[in-house]
């Protein structure tokens, strides 16, 4: 759906005769979370194809990697009787579970604010769709706090000079994914920007999934929770019993 929307947004731009086109790719179409997963570095790269074959200077590239949208609750701690506890809360209906943007120059130098908001370029321009009727400034405070918390967990990131363009035609960006990345279908969007406008866009999908034993465990805990619980108890009892039996035989 996101892809279709993006294509619709980009369609009029692509029709323009003299405008360049993007051919994007990623280093991994699938990121597999296995037992030794400690994070991954994705390479997002591609080519800018100019109709006349001659690259024009002043063209910039921004790459966005976005995780699935989730409804979330953000809570704010305040000091109550000397204890820090959660007091305020705001719901957001669609917060990306992962968001990283890399650009060839800092985004504020590249693009005007309105355009940035339309394409959700930059951490200040995410459309989180807050629910409830809190005043705008409170919403902004919570949004800020949320983005900040996600940055600390390395789930949100900005790389202001993270895109390298060589010879005006090839671009590449590295985006790192931490171990605690949520699973799902991600979109990697590439935007070609000139004179503060987006002149071309293209998207690729990336799947991040738990596979093998880890995938099986996560699925079992969710779908067969009772059997999973019983297994956990049995494993625990067996280990305890085995250790005591082993040591008894060995040392009496």
């Amino acid at each position, binding site marked *: 759906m996101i892809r279709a929307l993006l294509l619709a947004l980009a369609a009029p731009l692509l029709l323009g005769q003299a405008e360049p086109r993007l051919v994007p790719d990623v280093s991994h179409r699938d990121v597999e*979370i*296995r*037992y*030794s*997963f*400690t*994070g991954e570095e994705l390479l997002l790269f591609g080519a800018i194809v100019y109709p006349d074959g001659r690259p024009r200077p002043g063209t910039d590239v921004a790459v966005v990697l976005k995780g699935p949208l*989730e*409804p*979330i*609750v*953000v*809570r*704010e*701690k305040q*000091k109550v009787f*000397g*204890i*820090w*506890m*959660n007091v305020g*809360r705001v*719901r957001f209906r669609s917060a990306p*579970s992962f968001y990283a943007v890399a650009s060839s120059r800092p985004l504020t130098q590249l693009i005007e604010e309105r355009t940035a908001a339309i394409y959700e370029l930059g951490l200040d321009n995410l459309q989180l769709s807050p629910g409830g009727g809190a005043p705008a400034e409170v919403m902004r405070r*919570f949004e800020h*706090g*949320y983005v*900040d*918390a*996600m940055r*600390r967990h390395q789930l949100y990131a900005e790389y202001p000079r993270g895109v390298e363009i060589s010879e005006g035609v090839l671009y590449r960006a590295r985006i790192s994914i931490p*171990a*605690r990345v*949520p699973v799902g279908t991600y979109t990697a969007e590439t935007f070609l920007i000139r004179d503060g406008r987006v002149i071309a866009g293209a998207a690729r999908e990336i799947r991040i999934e*738990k596979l093998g*034993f*880890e*995938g099986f*465990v*996560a699925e079992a*805990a969710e779908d067969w*929770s*009772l059997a*999973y*619980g*019983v*297994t*956990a*108890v049995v*494993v*625990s*009892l067996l*280990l*305890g*019993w*085995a*250790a*005591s039996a082993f*040591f008894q035989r060995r*040392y009496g």
Partner: protein
Amino acid sequence: MDIYLPIAGLSVNVLVIVGLGGLVGLLTGMVGVGGGFLTTPILIFYGIPPAVAVASATTQITGTSISGVLAHRRRRGVDMRMGAVIIAGGVAGSIAGGFLFRLLQNMGQIDTVISMLYVILLGSIGIMMAKEAATALDIISPSRRQAEKPARRHNPLIAALPMRWRFYRSGLYISPLAPLGLGFVSGLLTVLLGIGGGFIMVPAMIYLLGMSAQVVVGTSLLQIVFVTAATTLVHATTTRSVDIVLAGLLLLGSVIGAQYGARFAQKMKPELLRMILAIVVLGVALRMALQLGWRPEEIYTVQML
């Protein structure tokens, strides 16, 4: 050596987790407490989500306690009848605790409640233990009032309860409602805090119920095995935060640590052991209290719906 925990959703160092399990196991074997009160806070400090830490620590305790029960059973140190009553209360408590946990989680207060309960429980028990151990080690002299007070077998409140049963092994003729209630409380605490509750149950059995000392530890361990097993099931089906990989790694360390701890304990003065435990308990309580009062690094927290 890093390993990915499928439920916690992050990578941890295997040696740190196994080592933590070993340390807790050593303490379990030496002093006979479950050690959940240490595992859960340390896991939380290490960055494991609190719900996962609590649930997985519970699973680990089942494993560490079973070998203790078997050993006490051989020495006829378990009152099965008393155990059954306490377990009935404990299972009910853990189911009620499951609902309470969910409710607090939705209200966003679970972390604060966990920390506060830890501070209160560990603080008061730590002070009591430190005092008692210091007296036994002749560091402080017993208070005059305590020395003169006549030993009282039964708490008057418990003696007033209706419907009395005979518990032969414990040498008691009391109402089953008292151990039932005690079990309920320990079940609640097991779900909320990820502790077996031994360090609350053992004093309560001795001082409140007046059980004979030979069966206290064995019966408490029996209760812990069943209540933590029930709690694992409650967590698995309600909060879905039991991480079997995390629990397995902890167990690997703790079952081995417990065996060495038990051997080690025979060579040390029991008062000294209790003093060490008291210091550890107070340390954890202090750390938790500071955490509640200090401005946290994360003012904003995120919960997925």
